[in-house]
């Protein structure tokens, strides 16, 4: 989840997010190196006392400062395309969950076997217990088995919403009348938070998403318990 004064991404909870994180570090390092070099050159040019009014052109340096940027761009493009295609892989999900956006809560449906559906409202600040996170906790979490490929189909009941969970590297728009598919696999058990990411009215900031990844037996117990309750 997010931390105060955080600068970088949240810790990854899925392999795809890990790749995105590492790629971001790689691209940002290149950006920092180039920016530092350019700043150094600018400062040097400004303060130097050496001048030669007769330097007009130079083939060698022109070649260098054309080829070098081209190679750097290739160095950025190759990992980027690798991750793009990785995210587009055909996967074989073990479970399908539907996430429906409403004003202003999410509802989750697990209908592979029985018809399990429930709403997930934000816990208001005055009802939080010590240790819980303000504006992030929900009364019912979307529980999933850890290390299993999951397919999530996202839609909306009324207006546009967006289902986003940063540690899983997921953001998908919830469009009324449309069913958007995304898939992920959690590499570790834990609780992962996200927030609605498309303006949807007065309580847009108050409809969080909470995904809880647990071992398979716990997931089976939880789903039986939820079915009994509803």
């Amino acid at each position, binding site marked *: 989840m997010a931390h105060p004064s955080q600068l970088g991404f949240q810790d990854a909870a899925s392999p795809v997010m890990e790749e995105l994180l590492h790629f971001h570090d790689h691209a940002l390092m290149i950006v920092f190196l180039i920016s530092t070099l350019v700043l150094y050159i600018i400062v040097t040019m400004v303060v130097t006392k050496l001048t030669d009014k007769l330097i007009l052109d130079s083939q060698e340096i022109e070649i260098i400062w054309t080829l070098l940027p081209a190679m750097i761009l290739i160095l950025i493009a190759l990992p980027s395309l690798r991750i793009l295609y990785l995210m587009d892989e*055909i*996967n*074989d*999900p*073990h*479970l*399908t969950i*539907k996430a*429906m956006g409403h004003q202003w809560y999410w509802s989750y*449906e697990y*209908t*592979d076997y029985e*018809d399990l*559906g429930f709403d997930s409202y934000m816990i208001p600040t005055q009802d939080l217990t010590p240790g819980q996170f303000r504006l992030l906790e929900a009364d019912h979490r979307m529980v999933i088995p850890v290390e299993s490929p999951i*397919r999530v*189909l996202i*839609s909306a*009941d009324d207006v546009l919403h967006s289902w986003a969970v940063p540690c899983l590297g997921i953001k*998908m728009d919830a469009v009324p*009348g*449309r*069913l*958007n*598919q*995304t898939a992920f696999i959690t590499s570790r058990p834990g609780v992962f938070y996200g927030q609605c990411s498309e303006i949807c009215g007065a309580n847009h900031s108050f409809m969080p998403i909470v995904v809880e990844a647990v071992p398979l037996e716990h997931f089976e117990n939880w789903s039986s318990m939820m079915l009994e309750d509803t």
Partner: protein
Amino acid sequence: MSGKFEEKIKKYRTAPFDARFPNTNQTRNCYQNYLDYHRCNKVLSAKKQKTTPCEWYRRVYKSLCPIAWVQKWDDQRQSGTFAGRI
């Protein structure tokens, strides 16, 4: 033949990848399986045959389609206002 199909249904986990719908938008995947289930039912019942093969389409549309959409379509079929061709 029916033994293999029953095995397949017993081992059903969730809707598998369908190459007809490879992209992010799975709306048509849900709708098509809903139509296919009811068409299959209608045709096999008219021929007075068992509707067991239709079970696959039912499981797939149940996995993919939001409950509210299925309820709305079922109500429309009851009242004769369903727009799809079954």
